[in-house]
């Protein structure tokens, strides 16, 4: 079985601040990490591989600048077999539509995949669009928000997370599944895996614009229909108040507070 995993290198938004004037992310000094949901997708792929290491091949695919190789090395050190990086200035500035065109073209070139796994969304853009768009462009079925995945032959049974419950969806390979954090706990890298990855840089293949079947009007900044006019951090809400004491005391405090504000 051949599994493709979509991965993206993103700024670690845990430590990110935004410039209150321009609304832009302060990227300086912010470490780059493997997008957390993508780590869940990779873990799902590796768990499938753990059960049948000889017959399951996991390839990680990403689009980004050369420095994204660091993140791909991390994926290799966790246990992926190899990786593909789509990297070219002509892909630069792509929105989700243009990105999914490029990645779908890369996947089409790989060809013989059975299963594609990706994170639900990236923590920098938060669109959750690229995965579903790739599936549409490849013409394969997709299931989003997977919190459990079971494989039986060519049949994949996915527990799909909803806000107030879940759906069980059965789908045939080849298919695209996007994964949420509840699916699993990603493993760490392995010390030997890190050494192997850096000793064998040829495990990462870089494809340029010319290596995949795509036109300039399908990818890159000018091909992107979405324009971000502004982004901003919502003003923080006022700090909440924790009531303490017995149930009766807390109710009394709450009632007093509501009356004071003339809500009741």
């Amino acid at each position: 079985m051949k599994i493709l995993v979509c991965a993206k290198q993103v700024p670690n938004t845990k430590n990110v601040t935004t410039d209150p004037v321009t609304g832009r992310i302060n990227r300086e000094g912010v470490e780059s990490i493997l997008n957390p949901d993508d780590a869940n997708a990779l873990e799902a792929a590796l768990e499938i591989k753990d059960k049948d290491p000889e017959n399951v091949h996991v390839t990680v695919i990403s689009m980004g600048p050369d420095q994204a190789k660091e993140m791909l090395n991390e994926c290799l050190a966790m246990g992926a077999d190899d990786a593909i990086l789509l990297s070219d200035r002509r892909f630069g500035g792509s929105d989700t539509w243009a990105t999914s065109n490029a990645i779908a073209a890369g996947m089409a070139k790989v060809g013989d995949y059975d299963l594609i796994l990706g994170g639900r969304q990236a923590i920098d853009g938060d669109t959750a669009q690229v995965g579903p768009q790739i599936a549409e462009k490849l013409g394969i079925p997709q299931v989003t928000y997977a919190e459990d995945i079971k494989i039986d032959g060519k049949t994949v049974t996915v527990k799909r997370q909803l806000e107030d419950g879940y759906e069980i969806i059965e789908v045939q390979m080849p298919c695209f599944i996007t994964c949420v954090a509840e699916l699993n706990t990603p493993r760490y890298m392995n010390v030997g895996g890190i050494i192997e990855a850096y000793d064998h840089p040829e495990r990462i293949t870089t494809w340029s614009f010319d290596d995949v079947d795509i036109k300039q009007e399908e990818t890159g900044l000018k091909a992107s229909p979405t324009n971000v006019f502004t982004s901003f951090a919502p003003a923080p809400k006022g700090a909440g108040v924790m009531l303490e004491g017995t149930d009766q005391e807390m109710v009394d405090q709450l009632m007093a507070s509501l009356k004071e504000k003339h809500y009741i």
Partner: protein
Amino acid sequence: MIFDAKHEMIRKLAREFAENELEPIANDVDKTGVYPQDVWDKVARYGFTGITIPKEYGGMGGDFKALSIVCEEFCAKDVSASSLIMGNSLSGEPFQMFGTEEQKQKYLVPLAKGEKIASFGLTEPGAGCDAGSVSTTAVEDGDYYILNGRKTFITMAPFCDYVTIFAKTDLHSGTHGITAFIVESNWEGFSTGKPEEKMGIHGSQTSDIILENVRVPKSNILGKVGRGFNIAMSILDAGRVTVASQSLGAAKGALDEAVKYSKERVQFGRPISKFQNTQFTLADMATKVEAARQLVYSAADKLDHGQKVTTEAAMAKYFASEIANEVAYKSVQIHGGYGYMKDYAIERIYRDARILPIYEGTSEIQKLVISRSVLADK
């Protein structure tokens, strides 16, 4: 610095692992003296047990810098945690450097995979710094040697599956009469004493090993008869770099705790980090930690290049272990009364650090080694 991208990635891994798996249980391990099996399993699963052991023997084929990095990061969160990766140093090095192919397959491979635990049995009640005066005896008997004696303060002895024992095969030849043997702990006549109640590093258990007519086959002689002392000495350099890395970790941990606390603790209306005394103390601590780091990784780098590092290893071990105590002392001082309480990690680090200038050669022995080099005729 001397690190490449691979080392930075190993540091990232070791730091994440230490933060997620070691730090949360460090206080419990301090109380119980035992790491949960789950942690041993994870340490093995992610390759920490065989960092410097070659791939053909089940290890990761990493270098000493990688080992030092992991040791620093682990020990920054829990100084005892170096015992989890001992297979890379004193436990595994003797087999790796001097074992026959058969011995490597039998004893090194399980260490690399984290399936077995080994100890290093050199110290005796009467042979500490003066390692040449061991009195454990090994008497030839056909295809066997019969071992009798008592080893003391042996790290991980209560859990070990086998141990490298240094014993006198010739009572009249001084250090040339010492031979190294691989002894399995389930052999008749092998027993261990009660685990010692120590001041710190409770996660690393220590006890005596008692040998009463233990029959050791000649195939378990490590290296050559009469060459045991050379084996012990040649392993010590790498071992000292490992303890220096452990010391660096302890120092870093103590500094980190001081920085964190000084930003949180408010006195006289502001965090104590705003006072110049605190700032200067932290500056002093950070400078010494960085100086120790340079010494440690310089020695590790030389080991990786196959250079003799006797002096550098002694300097790194001496300096890093002493400043670990100095930094821990100052960190407790910055914490004030809270630093004396078990609720704060620095209380544990302060106790744990005290062993560092003692074991694997006291600071005084290190100074002896360094001064010999300084005074040697060039």
